[in-house]
């Protein structure tokens, strides 16, 4: 079956971001077509720790977007046809050294002022009270009751199904081959299954966004950040809250260093923990920059297991049933690339969310819709802060 039709907007990428953008535009009455080269949620949206996590978002734009999204998820049953299993179970960031506490004190304060009013540092005895399974090594933790978990696959499918009800068209197993540009304006796309003309193209291709950028001679500085994760056998409710290690914040700066060193599957793991509705634990994780190599490695799985046992020795005998890896779309400043692109009318970026795509999906969808339909966003912050032009490497020919 050959595709040939006209649309108002073509969205490239069927992950959480692409599906959300499609949903919000279709709800607003736009003719939207979503193009996905594999299946919906086949990338990072279908392979992550199922967090809806606000604590680590930066004050400003990213945090406002995260808070906006979780508000949408909390009321999603009004809008979405599938239960997305969103649960505001609270999130802990486990601290194992005094040094980390000192680093995190000012970090927590700025976030409290920026809207996470209930975020606070709790000491060891309080932690033992609320999560007795967490080990002695943990001297403190940050606690944020706003954090939670979600079923990311159901989220994508729910957005897609709801979008279809509003008339959106979704083509899976369809590959974009060319983006048609005339006089610096988007005119449509050519896929391996036919042609779609449209004045807007949204690049929501996640870790592959730079490939889409190349089609219009744009350098998009998004690189794949591999994270390996473990799935265990299902257990009775164990620890309800989602948890991560403080290393994700205190060692944040080392990421760029790692890219420069060109590393590697021998990195230390830092804790990621969540328990799905079905009872399986999702445990992680490593941060690796190895290009588009989706293998899991013995070294990483081994160091993840050790990290998990360090904090939760009771899991020593628990069986691993699967391991998987994904590519988070990594940007060097950890912020997504959103909005218009200078000199290329109709090309909109919505990628580079790194590990925050799920918690940013709803608000990204809303913002991109507002940009396309109204030309401005309802954010209290300037969306242009997140434009592609903040990276000076951009070459536009």
């Amino acid at each position, binding site marked *: 079956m050959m595709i040939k039709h006209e649309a108002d907007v073509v969205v490239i990428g069927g992950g959480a971001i692409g599906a959300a953008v499609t949903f919000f535009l279709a709800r607003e009455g736009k003719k939207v077509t979503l193009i996905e080269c594999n299946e919906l949620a086949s990338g990072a949206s279908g392979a992550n720790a199922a967090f809806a996590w606000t604590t680590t978002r930066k004050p400003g734009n990213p945090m406002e977007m995260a808070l906006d999204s979780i508000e949408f998820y909390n009321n999603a049953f009004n809008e979405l046809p599938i239960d997305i299993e969103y649960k505001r179970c609270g999130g802990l960031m486990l601290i194992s050294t005094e040094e980390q506490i000192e680093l995190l004190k000012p970090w927590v304060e700025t976030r409290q002022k920026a809207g996470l009013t209930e975020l606070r540092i709790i000491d060891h005895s309080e932690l033992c009270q609320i999560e007795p*399974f967490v080990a002695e090594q943990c001297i403190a933790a940050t606690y944020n009751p706003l954090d939670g978990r979600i079923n990311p696959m159901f989220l994508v499918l729910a957005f897609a199904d709801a979008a279809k009800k509003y008339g959106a068209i979704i083509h899976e197993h369809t590959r974009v081959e060319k983006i048609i540009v005339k006089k610096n304006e988007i005119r449509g796309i050519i896929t391996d299954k036919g042609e779609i003309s449209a004045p807007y193209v949204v690049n929501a291709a996640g870790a592959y966004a730079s490939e889409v950028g190349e089609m219009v001679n744009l350098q998009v500085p998004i690189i794949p950040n591999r994270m390996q994760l473990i799935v265990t056998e*299902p*257990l009775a409710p164990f620890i309800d809250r989602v948890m991560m290690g403080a290393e994700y914040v205190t060692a944040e700066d080392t990421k760029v260093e790692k890219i420069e060193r060109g590393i590697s599957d021998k990195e230390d793991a830092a804790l990621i923990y969540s328990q799905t509705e079905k009872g399986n634990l999702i445990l992680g994780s490593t941060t690796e920059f190895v290009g588009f190599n989706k293998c899991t490695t013995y070294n990483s799985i081994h160091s993840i297991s050790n990290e998990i046992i360090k904090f939760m*020795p009771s*899991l*020593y005998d628990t*069986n691993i049933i699967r391991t998987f890896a994904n590519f988070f779309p990594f940007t060097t400043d950890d912020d997504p690339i959103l909005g218009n692109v200078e000199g290329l009318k109709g090309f909109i970026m919505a990628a580079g969310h790194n590990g925050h795509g799920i918690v940013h999906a709803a608000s990204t969808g809303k913002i991109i819709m507002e940009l396309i339909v109204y030309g401005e966003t309802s954010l209290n912050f300037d969306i242009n802060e997140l434009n592609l032009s903040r990276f000076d490497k951009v070459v536009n020919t």
Partner: protein
Amino acid sequence: MRVLSHPILGDSYQSDKVKITVDGVEIEALQGEPIAAALLAAGICICRLTHKHKQPRGLFCGIGLCTDCMMTVNGKPNVRTCIEPVDNNMRIETQVGLGVIKRSE
């Protein structure tokens, strides 16, 4: 039902007799045989009840893959009894639903 004569492993399987308890009831078993073998020999077919519908499950694949024969052994949940060897005084319990992790000290 025990394999006491095997074309490759030989005739009479020699092993010490030991005692294990299944849901509090003592049964006789052979040291080192799979727990599931001892259970079958004692006429016990149900290893666990499923999480959602509490339906009975028992020995199915017999080679440690399907997890239908999981039981709680010495307090440890999700033990595949078809590949776990018997030891003296083992405490074996029918597992109801998902495994419950106990806190290790």
